[in-house]
């Protein structure tokens, strides 16, 4: 690993050491980020599951009511009744920042404040079943919106957690060990150079002493 083109120089060593410090700090930070994201994600996903079960049950019930209402009256009557809705829903979309994941937050506004505007038809020609059906759908709607918010949040967070986890792993198992290995290699090489210079100097000194005074050395 270390043999892959590292210059055994002091400059390179300093550079690598700096890089290692940054990598270690980044690793620690990312790990913290991952843990916190995971904690929040688990809370949210539990709520997501609860909401989904609630909404699915609610919609199934509403569908059943609609089916009954449909069975009890003519198609044309139903179509006319729901043809021109009086109510209109619009959304405000805010942003909640959870560990740098931007999660949308929805608040809905109805065009008219009157609750009864969901009934877009005169009551004369339709049965009571339809009223009940529309009402049951209206009741579940706030939960549906919460579900949308929660589920989107979960998806976004899941993607972010996956990314963060990969980064943490890459740092932990690839980048940091490689840097440490390289640093070790350079330190060894520098030490070796140092020793060889020292020995050379000693050797030269011995040779010079022998020449000048005839000292016998080994």
């Amino acid at each position, binding site marked *: 690993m270390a043999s892959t083109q590292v210059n055994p120089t002091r400059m390179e060593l300093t550079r690598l050491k700096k890089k290692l410090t940054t990598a270690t700090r980044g690793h620690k930070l990312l790990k913290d980020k991952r843990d916190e994201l*995971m904690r929040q*994600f*688990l809370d949210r*996903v*539990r709520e*997501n*599951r609860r909401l*989904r*079960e609630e*909404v*699915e049950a609610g*919609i*199934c019930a*509403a*569908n059943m009511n*609609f*089916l009954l209402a449909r069975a009890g009256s003519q198609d044309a009557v139903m179509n006319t009744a*729901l043809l021109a*809705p*009086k*109510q*209109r*829903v*619009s*959304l*405000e*979309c805010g*942003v909640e920042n959870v560990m740098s994941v*931007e*999660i*949308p937050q*929805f608040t*809905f506004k*109805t*065009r008219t404040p009157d609750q009864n505007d*969901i*009934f*877009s038809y005169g009551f004369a020609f339709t049965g009571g079943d339809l009223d009940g*059906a*529309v009402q049951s*759908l*209206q009741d579940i*709607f706030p939960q*549906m*919106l919460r*579900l*949308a*918010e929660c*589920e*989107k949040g*979960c*998806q*976004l*967070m*899941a*993607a972010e*957690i*996956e990314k963060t*986890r990969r980064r943490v792993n890459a740092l932990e198992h690839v980048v940091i060990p490689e840097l440490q290995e390289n640093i070790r290699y350079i330190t060894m090489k520098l030490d070796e150079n140092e020793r060889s210079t020292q020995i050379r100097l000693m050797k030269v000194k011995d040779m010079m002493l022998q020449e000048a005074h005839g000292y016998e050395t080994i």
Partner: protein
Amino acid sequence: MYRIAVLGDRDSIYGFAALGLEVFPVEDAEAGRRTLRNLCEQEFAVIYITEALAAQLPEELSRYEEQRLPAIIPIPGVVGNTGLGIARVKRSVEQAVGSDIIFTDGDA
């Protein structure tokens, strides 16, 4: 100002019109795909889609999964609950945690 759309077969979704949501009835998967793409380019923040239709357009759904908006949410249609919605929640848990730790308690 964003809007909410409901997409699916007509029988499943016409009730939502009364609430003031915008309904887009489609007959088949191809029309659904076209409408969905169209909706995603407009100002719809939430798109509810019936599970039956969603099951036919998995690649379209995953395309918008990592974007902040729109949120595409599967809801059960008139034919009943196919479990696709909860499966998606499951999948995001698996994606985040690596294995499914929320739904292992047997009742889901």
